[in-house]
């Protein structure tokens, strides 16, 4: 089976989680600090974070790390029109929206800041990633509940196959504020809501002029593995949700990015992710990395 996607960068950004403690053979990446939303400036630099919601900050951190940028740096120059953004998450702006509604009912518009205007729109996270890093290609905000990450992977693949972009930055992020956590408490999940983010930088596998990376084969929901994976992530194997909590709409991206780390950075060979509608087999591309 031909892998459809090539990941050239990835990150798992779960503040407060020591990834290395749960993993067999954890690489250096698993020891790296993941600053929380309030410490995002240590990675991103101080400028521009005012009124940015926690999920947006986490998403920016995850993209920053997946691109391998030095602290405080971001790409300069005009927007890159051939890089698309596919962002996945549901809860990023629920606290802002609830707070605005409460403020209006108690003190009218005096209690509302115009700085929150972008946050009233549910795509603020996707738009901010594009603006921060200069990604001028198609920009999608996928809000399909727990399946958002799986949908995001398939849409990233579609954008690349349809030649709408040469590169897709797939990012998932959710917060765990009190509004998000209360809403998440109404769904049947295997763990409580965990604030976190993850990112995969994706290209088409065929004809890619990139050496190394991770090859991702997207499989239909219930398809058998084309080869038996050495590690399976999900309810039937190592379950990130049970270990670290549920990143809800970002979980699919978290699991897929974790699979890339395990397969390439830690040399675990083929790593499968199977969770709900997500089924993907991740291996080091071109025989490199394990």
């Amino acid at each position, binding site marked *: 089976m031909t892998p459809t996607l090539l990941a050239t960068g990835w990150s798992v950004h779960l503040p407060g989680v020591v990834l290395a403690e749960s993993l067999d053979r954890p690489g250096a990446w698993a020891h790296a600090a993941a600053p929380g939303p309030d410490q995002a400036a240590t990675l991103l630099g101080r400028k521009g974070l005012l009124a940015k919601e926690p999920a947006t900050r986490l998403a920016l951190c995850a993209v920053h790390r997946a691109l391998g940028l030095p602290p405080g740096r971001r790409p300069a120059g005009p*927007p890159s*029109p051939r890089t698309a*953004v596919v962002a996945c998450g*549901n809860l990023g*702006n*629920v606290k*802002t*929206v*609830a*707070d*605005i*509604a*409460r*403020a*209006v*009912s108690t003190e*009218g*518009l005096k209690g*509302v800041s*115009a700085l*929150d*205007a*972008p946050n*009233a*729109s*549910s*795509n*603020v996270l*996707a*738009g*901010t990633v*594009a*603006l921060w*890093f*200069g*990604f*001028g*290609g*198609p*920009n*999608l*905000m*996928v*809000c*399909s*509940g727990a*399946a958002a990450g799986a*949908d995001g992977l398939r*849409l990233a693949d*579609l*954008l690349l*196959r*349809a030649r*709408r972009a040469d590169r897709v930055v797939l990012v998932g992020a959710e917060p765990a504020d009190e*509004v998000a956590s209360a*809403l*998440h408490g*109404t*769904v049947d999940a295997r763990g409580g809501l965990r604030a976190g983010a993850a990112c995969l930088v994706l290209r088409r596998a065929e004809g890619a002029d990139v050496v190394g990376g991770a090859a991702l084969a997207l499989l239909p929901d219930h398809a058998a593995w084309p080869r038996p994976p050495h590690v399976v992530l999900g309810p039937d194997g190592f379950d990130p949700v049970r270990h670290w909590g549920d990143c809800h709409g970002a979980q699919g991206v978290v699991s897929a990015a974790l699979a890339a780390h395990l397969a390439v950075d830690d040399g675990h060979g083929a790593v499968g992710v199977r969770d709900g509608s997500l089924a993907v087999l991740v291996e080091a591309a071109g025989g490199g990395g394990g």
Partner: protein
Amino acid sequence: MGALVASSAVRTCFGDGAQTFAALLSGRCGAGPLRYGDPAALNVAVGYHVPDDVGGDHAGRAGRLLADCLVDAVRRAGLDPARQRVPVLVGTGLRELGGVEDWALTGTPFPLSRLDFGDVVRTALPGVADVVTLANACSAGGHALALAQDMVESGDAEAVVVAAADTMTRSMLAMIGKVTPEPGTRVRPFDRDRTGVLLGEGAAAVVVVGEGGPGPAVARIVATGLSCDAHHETSPDVDGIVRSMRDAFDRAGRAPSEVDLVVAHGTGTALNDPAECRALREVLLAAGGDPLVTGVKGAVGHTSGSAALVNLDVAARCLEHGVVPPVAGLREVLPEGAGLRFARGERVATRPELVQVNAFGFGGVNAVTLVEAA
């Protein structure tokens, strides 16, 4: 390459697609007193509401309008999602965030599963499994349309339902009220003295099939171009809009001068309308084009995520009937619109061949669709 619109269903303040088009041709304005939230506290007095006998009370209203359109469009296309795999893409700006606000204000329970439209779609269309909710602001429907065409062209699906729905949230109304000195009384797209945007409730669904699909079609989608400004969170950028237009023409293999009608985004805001005019001049007029320009938001308000599909429905009816509605609310064209031929005052009898449909959203997300007769 291209795709067919096998059927289209919309709901606006005027009713269904035929009722909406008739009202547009008459130059009517569907604005009325705001029936959601506290108008005085929000500094917003007017909304373009779908009648309550269609939409029901506000809880879950977007989902009900959506379900109505889904059932209507699928029935008219003769599609049976129980017998064939039909992915559904739903574009929305505000999802059901009004339910989150109700929960915050009154404690009314709000299951998280109702924030997106997956359950609504699966209930309305039994047999559907794949539902993607795209929260792409005011161009959500246009983005969904682009992806649906990609899916049928690549053979991923034989038919895709593209849908959209938006009603109102207190938080978005508050932001409109916050940036508006005086509450607006109606939307005046492209007017020199425009006073800003007002929300319209709306929903839409279209069935997209591949070329040569069975049955009649209401229009042919030539291509949709996409871009993100990556310029500013809320202010539109001419360069970003221009890129989405050029992307559409590149994908279509068509020349900008071929466009003879633009169904514009035209929100009546200080920033959108000048930027959209500049982009139209830069891409269409500079290439020798001289299209008629119309827009619907003066009549139906800004239907947010549904706006692109409402525009598409209007474009299809212009193609079919050979008549173009005027821009309701437009009195004197803004300076940046000089040289553009707006449909003003009266309907214009003309038979366009290639129609450009614009949709731009918060976050600088742009979708431009080229449509022609099927």
